[in-house]
């Protein structure tokens, strides 16, 4: 439950600000001139704030849509991402957000329209090529949906943009809104997973695998396109058995033949993010394991990464057609 809401002056009277604030009638409202003065101020501790994050409502002025890093995608020729929200309600210890942001508070940019105007113009500029827009890069796409209503708005806009494809990436089971409407052709709901033992150790506050699989099954039965994301793969000595177990759990429930796409990627973090995460969680075993630095990235090392990718790939092709599997690096 949100106890404190910071409201940027420029959105004080925005209808969405009012709507969101009404959801938290007992929250303390604090005015701020610019959201940065709260979110980016010095001396904040991400770990302490994660105990009880506040909500910051703000206006985004530019950079609504950005190109994804190379090798991030599911087969499209033009790949972009967008973030209506900064930070995630979950607390995954491997997540780069802990290293990227000074604050664990949730920022929601309420001017949704501006995002989709830019998405529309970006899609048009690709001249009919396959353009993909990824949501869920700086936040979980669905976990905060009951508060923001962003995806409800996004789906309405994408349903009128046949040249643009939307990926909604999530670990959430907040699918009520999706089940109340007919699926749209150019949208994939992509669920992220790690095996049970990794999830238990590292994915704090995340719904169980069982609940996520059930949510996925409901969406698939409703006609939504489903994606599977296995990123990051966190190496362990029982990797093969762990992923075999995970895939069995998933494909016992959902139909592999109608899965839209599958992607995977090994655990890696930019070095400055990793250093900050170690400072925040020095007792975390994942960060104490033998990791290597290469090209300003921290990972399990090239050979181990390759072993991870290869193991997951080999286990996946027992269930899934190889042509819809996309490795990410």
């Amino acid at each position, binding site marked *: 439950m949100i106890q404190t809401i910071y409201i940027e002056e420029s959105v004080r009277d925005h209808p969405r600000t009012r709507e969101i604030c009404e959801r938290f009638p007992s929250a*303390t409202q604090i005015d701020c001139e610019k959201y940065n003065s709260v979110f980016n101020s*010095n001396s904040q501790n991400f770990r302490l704030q994660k105990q009880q994050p506040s909500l910051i409502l703000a206006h985004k002025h530019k950079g609504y849509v950005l190109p994804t890093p190379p090798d991030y995608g599911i087969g499209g020729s033009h790949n972009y991402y967008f973030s209506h929200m900064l930070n995630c309600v979950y607390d995954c210890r491997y997540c780069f957000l802990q290293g990227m942001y000074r604050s664990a508070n949730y920022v929601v940019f309420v001017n949704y329209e501006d995002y989709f105007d830019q998405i529309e113009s970006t899609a048009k500029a690709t001249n009919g090529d396959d353009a993909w827009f990824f949501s869920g890069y700086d936040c979980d796409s669905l976990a905060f949906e009951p508060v923001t209503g962003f995806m409800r708005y996004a789906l309405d806009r994408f349903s009128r943009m046949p040249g643009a494809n939307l990926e909604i990436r999530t670990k959430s089971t907040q699918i009520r809104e999706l089940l109340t409407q007919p699926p749209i052709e150019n949208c994939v709901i992509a669920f992220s997973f790690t095996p049970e033992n990794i999830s238990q150790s590292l994915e704090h506050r995340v719904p169980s695998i069982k609940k996520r699989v059930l949510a996925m099954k409901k969406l698939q039965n409703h006609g939504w396109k489903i994606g599977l994301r296995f990123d990051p793969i966190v190496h362990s000595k029982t990797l093969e058995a762990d992923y075999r177990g995970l895939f069995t759990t998933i494909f016992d429930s959902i139909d592999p033949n109608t899965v839209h796409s599958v992607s995977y990627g090994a655990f890696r973090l930019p070095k400055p993010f990793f250093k900050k995460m170690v400072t925040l969680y020095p007792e975390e075993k994942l960060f104490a394991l033998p990791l290597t630095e290469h090209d300003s990235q921290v990972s399990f090392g090239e050979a181990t990464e390759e072993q991870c990718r290869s193991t997951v790939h080999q286990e996946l092709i027992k269930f899934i057609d190889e042509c819809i599997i996309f490795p990410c690096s």
Partner: protein
Amino acid sequence: MLNVVVATKAEAESLITALHLKHVSATFPLYTKDTTSLVITGIGKCRAAAITSWLAAQSDYASASPGRNKSVCWLNVGIAGHCDAHIGSIFCAHKINDFGSEKVWYPPQISPPLPSANLTTVDKPLDDYIPDQLHDMEGSGFVETARMYSYAELVQCIKVVSDNAEQPFSNIDAKLASHVIAQNIPSIVQFIDHLQTLATNLKPVDISIVSEFLQRWNFSVSQKIILERLLQRYSVLHSPMTAIPADLNQLKSTKEALRWLTHSVDSVSYSL
């Protein structure tokens, strides 16, 4: 560890009693017990800033890792004016505005067990109260300085209303200041408990053995940083090292010692 900063003796009296603090001889009026210190700064933000820094230096000398212990709780307690809040009502500040410089700080609110309010720090008492604001004379000086030594979440201001439009600041005397703080001691102590519980999240990994390493070998500054991280990893992957193992102890050079430690943490199997 807790550092409390208070402007006057009258405001501090009941806190000194409640926290069982004893006066110690120092440059400024200082009261301590175990890891809790309270300093009396005198009135005004410059004095608050300067003496907050002085107290940080005192704590730092006593610390095992000077300059690196950022999990210290800092609390400014004092009286404040408010346009219409009742005399004796208590708040923690959620936004601190320095009236002179117009600088603003937002003390992070992590489930505070007190109602919160805006606080404006002024250089001299104002004739008219700014609506919806607490008014004090130390908050901005304290918060700007204390944040240099700790995390923003652990630097907080508690203000008890001593005057309002009906009972203006000209009525305030030491007795009133002392009284309004004293009647809120249970809430202040509860807030201190809350802050200290929060700080326990930042409990460091035990690498107290590092002092034995530093006595046994001569590490350069950069080697010391590497050593500390290796000992941290050792502690997490095995258990805190309580004594230097015999086979490590017989190694002659720092490089050999670091290599031994590296091997001991890099040879663990991948399992969470």
